[in-house]
């Protein structure tokens, strides 16, 4: 979730909104008490609608990517369970060929909604860390110089955080095949393409049955 209050300028805008919000209620109330109540309900409904649809609107306006000073080709990889998959490794090797590439892996700490809301994230983060460590070791063994970190449980937020930290030139999102992928079902790949002005490659990793777990990303 994006916090609308990040700076003093945001707070100043909020002062304006508050003045307009209450001024209309007062004007309505002066004319008629029920009109004032109606204005209050109407304004509040518009406000709730604006807050709810804000996330959708933001997805249609791609964010500009931060720049970096070196000439390396920076690849941000977002993957969880599929992070050590062969298809992903092959894709990264192909992209790192002939250029000086830096790979940064973000492994979202996937969690159930209930555990997320009660802040029970320790196990999810431990699992993500363990998968990340294994995959980084596999990538290094395959000749790809990679580093990484655990990301937010919301993959879109994890991508955004990764972009702020790493300033990539392109994104690679790795998922299970259609039908088994929770991320594809939620439209994460399309949402990423809509939200960030950065080339996005989607890699499908078909893990062997014994390597899959209950959480599918």
């Amino acid at each position, binding site marked *: 979730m994006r916090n609308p209050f990040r700076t*003093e300028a945001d707070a100043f805008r909020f002062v304006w909104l508050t003045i307009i919000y209450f001024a209309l209620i007062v004007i309505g109330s002066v004319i008629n008490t029920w009109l004032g109540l109606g204005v209050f309900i109407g304004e509040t409904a518009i406000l709730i609608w604006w807050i709810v649809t804000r996330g959708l609107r933001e997805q249609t306006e791609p964010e500009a990517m931060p720049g970096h000073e070196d000439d390396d080709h920076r690849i941000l990889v977002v993957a969880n369970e599929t992070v050590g998959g062969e298809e992903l490794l092959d894709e990264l090797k192909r992209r790192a060929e002939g250029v000086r590439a830096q790979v940064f892996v973000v492994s979202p700490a996937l969690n159930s909604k209930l555990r997320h809301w009660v802040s029970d994230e320790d196990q999810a983060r431990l699992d993500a860390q363990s998968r990340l460590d294994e995959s980084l070791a596999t990538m290094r063994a395959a000749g790809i110089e990679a580093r990484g970190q655990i990301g937010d449980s919301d993959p879109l937020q994890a991508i955004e955080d990764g972009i702020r930290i790493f300033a990539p030139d392109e994104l690679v999102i790795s998922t299970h095949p259609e039908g088994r992928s929770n991320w594809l079902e939620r439209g994460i790949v399309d949402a990423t393409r809509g939200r960030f002005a950065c080339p996005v490659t989607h890699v499908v990793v078909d893990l062997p049955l014994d390597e899959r777990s209950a959480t599918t990303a």
Partner: protein
Amino acid sequence: MSAADVPHIPAHAHGDANLHPPPIHWSSRISHLIVGIFLFIGSEIMLFGSFFTVYFFDRVVNPNTTQWPPEGFIRPWYIALINTCILVTSSFTVHWATTSIKRGNRTGLQCGLALTFLLGLTFLLTQVVEYHRIGFNTSDGAFPSTFFGLTGLHGFHVFVGLMILLVMTVRSFRGHFSPEEHHGIEVGGIYWHFVDVMWIVVYVTVYVL
């Protein structure tokens, strides 16, 4: 077991290595230098919320309340309206100060902060005069109690804001802050806007409606 029998356990054996704060998490997209003031304001909103609950309970739920305000009490809405204008203007001046330092305009910063402080002080002094002439006291019933409770709580926040503004103003005249480093202005400005917003809510609910 005597003290001598207790084996010496080195500090690191207790897992002290894990006693560090978690790494900075950017998911909120707010600078970690700013997030503290928003958390503080969140707690302040809850405090004001409890006072508003008492106020609306007395006004709406209390079966002894037949009209609002109760007979014999007159709310000085006109003086409070002037005070509202003063406080809203002070939000403009503190915003001017913040944008000035971001552009490297030190004079704008100093003038903006000094004006904001003076406007805040005027607001507080006007409120003191209003209390003095209002004609009722906290012991006169539930309405005056909630009236003084809410406006007094806000007045206290204005006082705290003035102290913060005073420090900001003195620092600005001593050459502190720059276009790159103005965290103290940003945080103080956010707090002042919060005080302004809370007053608008207090004014509308307590004085007008």
